[in-house]
């Protein structure tokens, strides 16, 4: 096990050492239930798919994922353990990635525990399980995107609450970026490529197609590059800010 694995394990264990992981998972499951069965009209639609389940994920993640990410680096700076971590013989990239993967792993576990929804829909009908698998994967990647933003925001402050608020704000921006509300707000004379670039950066643009079963590698690539960029930004912010 390399340093990356050691840090990953420590971070994941620390989520479960406090009530945070359990609270996160329980609330995530309850909210999913409410959204899917009540608000999403799961039964009324009379269709054997999990579209109502997945379509609420961006909005659920908007508030839940920043809560997981807010302590990633802010707590280290607040308690001074960052000085301990950064003077151990490890690379900064191992620390950034290890922490991110632990948080991503936690959201993965929460997502996995929604399997009763999948069983329900399979019991009631005959859904396309390939589409559901793809949607699960897409949802997890989107959570990774939110987390990467959270990692960077957490690195920029000592205060986890500030990190939370900043993360929610920026995530909101990326969620709505591709939506018609924002795109229609552009004046007529705006060059098309700018509007397109905006639309292409939006989470909804990519997630909608994945959740409908359109498995385009470019959508996954978008999230992968998005995650990488924000983690790189995290590393840079940590280097600059660790002294204060």
């Amino acid at each position, binding site marked *: 096990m390399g340093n990356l694995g*050691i840090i990953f394990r420590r971070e994941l264990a*620390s989520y479960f*050492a*406090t009530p945070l992981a359990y609270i996160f998972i329980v609330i995530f499951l309850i909210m999913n239930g409410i959204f899917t069965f009540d608000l999403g009209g799961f039964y009324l639609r009379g269709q054997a798919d999990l579209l109502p389940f997945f379509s609420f994920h961006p909005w659920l993640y908007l508030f839940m994922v920043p809560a997981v990410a807010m302590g990633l680096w802010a707590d280290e700076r607040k308690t001074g*353990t960052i*000085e301990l971590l950064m*003077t151990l013989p490890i690379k900064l990239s191992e620390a950034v990635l290890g922490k991110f993967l632990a948080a991503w792993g936690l959201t993965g576990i929460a997502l996995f525990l929604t399997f009763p929804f999948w069983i329900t829909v399979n019991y009631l009908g005959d859904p396309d399980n390939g589409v559901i698998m793809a949607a699960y994967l897409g949802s997890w990647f989107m959570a990774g995107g939110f987390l990467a933003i959270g990692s960077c925001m957490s690195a920029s402050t000592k205060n986890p609450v500030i990190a939370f608020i900043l993360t929610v704000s920026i995530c909101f921006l990326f969620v709505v970026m591709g939506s018609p509300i924002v795109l229609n707000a552009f004046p007529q004379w705006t060059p098309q490529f700018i509007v397109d670039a905006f639309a292409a950066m939006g989470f909804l643009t990519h997630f909608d197609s994945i959740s409908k079963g359109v498995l385009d590698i470019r959508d996954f690539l978008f999230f992968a590059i998005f995650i990488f960029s924000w983690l790189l930004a995290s590393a840079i912010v940590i280097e600059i800010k660790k*002294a204060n």
Partner: protein
Amino acid sequence: MIEVDHLTKKFDQVTAISDLSFTVVEGEVLGFLGPNGAGKSTTMKVITGFLFPTEGTVKIDGFDITRSPIEAKSLIGYLPEGAPCYGDMTTREFLYFIARIRGYRGAEIKNRVDRVVKEVALETVFHQSIDTLSKGFKRRVGLAQAIMHDPKVLILDEPTDGLDPNQKHHVRELIKNLAKDKIVIISTHILEEVSAVCTRAIIIDQGKIVADGTPAELESRSRYHQAVSIRLTTSHDLAADLAGCPDVDHVEQDSEDPLRYTILAKDGKPIFSAVSELAQSKHWPVSEFHINKGQLEDVFRTITQGLHREIK
């Protein structure tokens, strides 16, 4: 060997340390002294690779801390100021984590952890979460973490700050035992600690080295060096008797105890025998009589406050 070469660290416009150069070799226990904000902690943070120097280099056994950070950091055990540890972990989990990061695998992990736990006496809190530990125990967990890999270089930022006298004594004994073939750098503002454990002391003020020598050498720079302290049973005019003594500078009377006097030597010359002969021949009513080595505290104040005055 640690080579610090023309080290400068600036934060925006503030220069925390400027043009610091010194070398520390195996077997030395270097005490880093200075008033608060003098740059002690900053220097340690740069040496351990937490902060990058603005200018200059630090080499640990030939490894440049900025160019080969992993190799250099592997040689260092570091206790940061306040001994930060992951509070949600138990002592056991935390030390296992450190042992793994330090590259130990399999049975070796347990051996290492058991050894340091014994060394700093953590058996009683082994399964307790670090958040619930007292300050003294937390400090010891931090020390255990720092000595896990039997490092060649041990850097301790205020290792005894906030400990009770017994714990202080214990930590000092530990440092002395560790120091034999290692380099130890400790920062402190407790001056008795320097005399107790250090073989060398560097005083820094405003980011510059203002004194460097063995504790004895620094003490000899005190105006109390070679001074003789006397307590009399009844009052007696010492100054008149001492007028004929060429090496005696002057006599100071204690403000709280008028029967207590300090006879200061001129330029640190030995005056003990001359004064003791005089005391016998003049029949001073002496109840206490001893020689002063010099006070580190006095040297510290003279050196560091002198600088401040110049600047003002």
